[in-house]
């Protein structure tokens, strides 16, 4: 039954985003599906509006409380829009019927752009799959969901649960201390435009390479390769006092038996000193060790406890929202944005029902942040490595691409760059 009234507290990961997001730091990520037909925007809009009520965690608007922000029910009609020319564009929910996500269409592409305060990549993927499935149903196709489309399955209260809080154990905290990381510098594109660079690889070829030659996982290999590309191509890194730090978000759901659609991920990190010489193999070894040390349930649990413990501090809780917002902004500017150099988010394999497999041709997962942000998404035997950057220098992308080619992989690239853009951007 549809509930008229409900509300949620923001989860631990999402609490900071409303305070620190702005035009050039949107904290919006994108998921796109390329379909086998041109999108009918009217049907897409119907599909979204039919899907939203099933996803209580997303049918919300952000409200200001006296002490904290919170999510309140939202039953307004949702309007889809044509995709804008800017990726992961910052939007004000007040101009979007209160919703904290956007659904765009362009030719055969359906795009979901989600504000990070509401969910992470895994939650958003369920939502997009359900929208696209509903879209084809409304188009008149008879499709079987094979239990892979959440929108077709009964809703569970557990989907709206804040699993950071439900897994909180105040007696098992670990100390969180972050040193500052190396930061990229250089000319950026105008109008907050972000360069999109997609490398399409054959999944089998890639797996064979990383498993047989390097005894690593795809995420470990790409993290090390990205770090090595930066080491090779950035002139001011060597001798720089701060290390290069790669942040890799980890989906916590499998570790804590969670089905939540809200944020439930933490990052692990790997750090490379700028005061020594590196080979790619050494960087990969460090990456593998970091993964091994940090991808342990107890470690992750300890960090959850430390983060939630901070939020449960009485002094912080009693601070009015106006002051918290100022504190978040100052804290984020002083520390938050400077503790990582790059990020790599691997969404894994997109599992679709058999009937939908032929209709979804390709997928994008885009995380536009500071410096270089990388994502991985696999669909139908293809792995897309997507790199985004607001910086005009693309030599890191070039080095990375050439390394993959030298490794014997067939590389197909796509970009949002066009001839003539230099005059505008």
């Amino acid at each position, binding site marked *: 039954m549809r509930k008229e*009234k409900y*509300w949620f*507290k923001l989860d631990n990961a999402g609490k900071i985003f409303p305070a620190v997001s702005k035009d050039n730091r949107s904290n919006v990520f994108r998921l796109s599906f*390329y379909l086998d037909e041109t999108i009918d925007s009217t049907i897409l809009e119907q599909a979204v509006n039919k899907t939203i009520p099933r996803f209580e965690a997303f049918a919300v608007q952000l*409200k*200001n*409380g*006296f*002490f*904290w922000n*919170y999510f*309140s029910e939202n039953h307004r009609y949702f309007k889809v829009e*044509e*995709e*804008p*020319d*800017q990726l992961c564009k910052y939007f*004000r929910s*007040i*101009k979007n019927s209160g919703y904290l996500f956007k659904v765009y269409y*362009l*030719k055969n*592409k359906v795009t979901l752009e989600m504000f990070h305060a509401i969910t992470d990549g895994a939650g958003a993927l369920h939502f997009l799959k359900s929208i696209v499935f509903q879209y084809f149903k409304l188009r008149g196709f008879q499709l079987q969901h094979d239990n892979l489309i959440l929108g077709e399955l009964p809703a569970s209260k557990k989907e709206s649960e804040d699993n950071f809080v439900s897994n909180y154990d105040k007696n098992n905290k670990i100390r969180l201390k972050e040193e500052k990381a190396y930061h990229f510098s250089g000319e950026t594109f105008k*109008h907050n*435009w972000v360069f*999109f660079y997609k490398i*399409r690889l054959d999944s089998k070829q890639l797996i064979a390479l990383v498993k047989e030659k390097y005894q690593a996982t795809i995420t470990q290999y790409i993290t090390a390769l990205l770090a090595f590309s930066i080491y090779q191509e950035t002139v001011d890194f060597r001798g720089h006092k701060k290390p290069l730090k790669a942040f890799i978000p980890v989906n916590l759901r499998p570790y804590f038996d969670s089905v939540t659609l809200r944020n439930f991920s933490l990052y692990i990190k790997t750090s490379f000193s700028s005061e020594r010489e590196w080979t790619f193999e050494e960087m990969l070894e460090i990456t593998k060790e970091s993964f091994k040390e940090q991808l342990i349930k107890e470690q992750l649990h300890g960090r959850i406890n430390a983060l939630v413990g901070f939020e449960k501090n009485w002094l912080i*809780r*009693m601070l009015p929202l106006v002051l918290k917002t100022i504190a978040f902004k100052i804290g984020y500017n002083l520390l938050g944005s400077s503790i990582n150099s790059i990020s790599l988010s691997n969404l894994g394999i997109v599992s679709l029902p058999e009937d939908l497999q032929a209709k979804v041709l390709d997928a994008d997962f885009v995380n536009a942040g500071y410096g270089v942000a990388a994502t991985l998404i696999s669909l139908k035997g293809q792995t897309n490595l997507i790199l985004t950057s607001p910086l005009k220098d*693309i030599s890191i*992308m*070039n080095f990375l*691409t*050439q390394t993959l*080619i030298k490794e014997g992989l*067939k*590389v*197909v*690239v*796509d*970009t*949002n*760059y*066009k*001839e003539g*853009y230099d005059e*505008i*951007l």
Partner: protein
Amino acid sequence: MRYCKTCQIHYDTDLIHCIFCNGELEIPENDQTSYKFKPITKKRHLGFFFRLFVFLNFISIFLSLTIDYLTGTPISWSLVVSSTNVYVIAALFILLYPSFWASKFTKMMVATILVVILIGLSIRDVSWAIDYVFPFAAMSVSLVLTALIVSNRKRWFEYFPPLFISILVGLLPGLFILLKIAQVHWPSLVSFIYSAVTLLGVIFLPSKSSREEFKRRFHI
């Protein structure tokens, strides 16, 4: 698919030159590649005009204060000009920043009361601002918001934060009487009583859903 011989990269987009080496791409006869994004168009820089507006207002403040100071008499008229300049900038921010209109209305009320008091202080006669403008402005906003809540009870919670702020502002004239800042007491007293009654109404009249809204807004 298009191909760069030098970089050995296949392109699944309609570029003519390689983005790395700028060499011409090989384009096959049956090429079906297309650009998959919305092309960017030149944008107007509205930000510049906004910054210019703020800058000109600051110049106005600086010049008027300097001229007033150089005349040798105590600074007065320049403070009126400066207050107005600051008010205009604040009003522009409030109006341009996308937010719920009731929130804009309340913020404008607070800004207007402040500028009126500042002008009163500048001309060394603040009594008319404190005694009349402040209480009546606070009461009018509370009255408008109460009317909106009564006429749109289903969505009353949308108006709750601005109403709460206007109640708090409306209670202040009571403090002015206690602190002997207000010289004419009746408008301040009326404002205080009206705001207190509205506050009691907010606490005791509402239904279960209103108490739920209270819980949401004040959760710690």
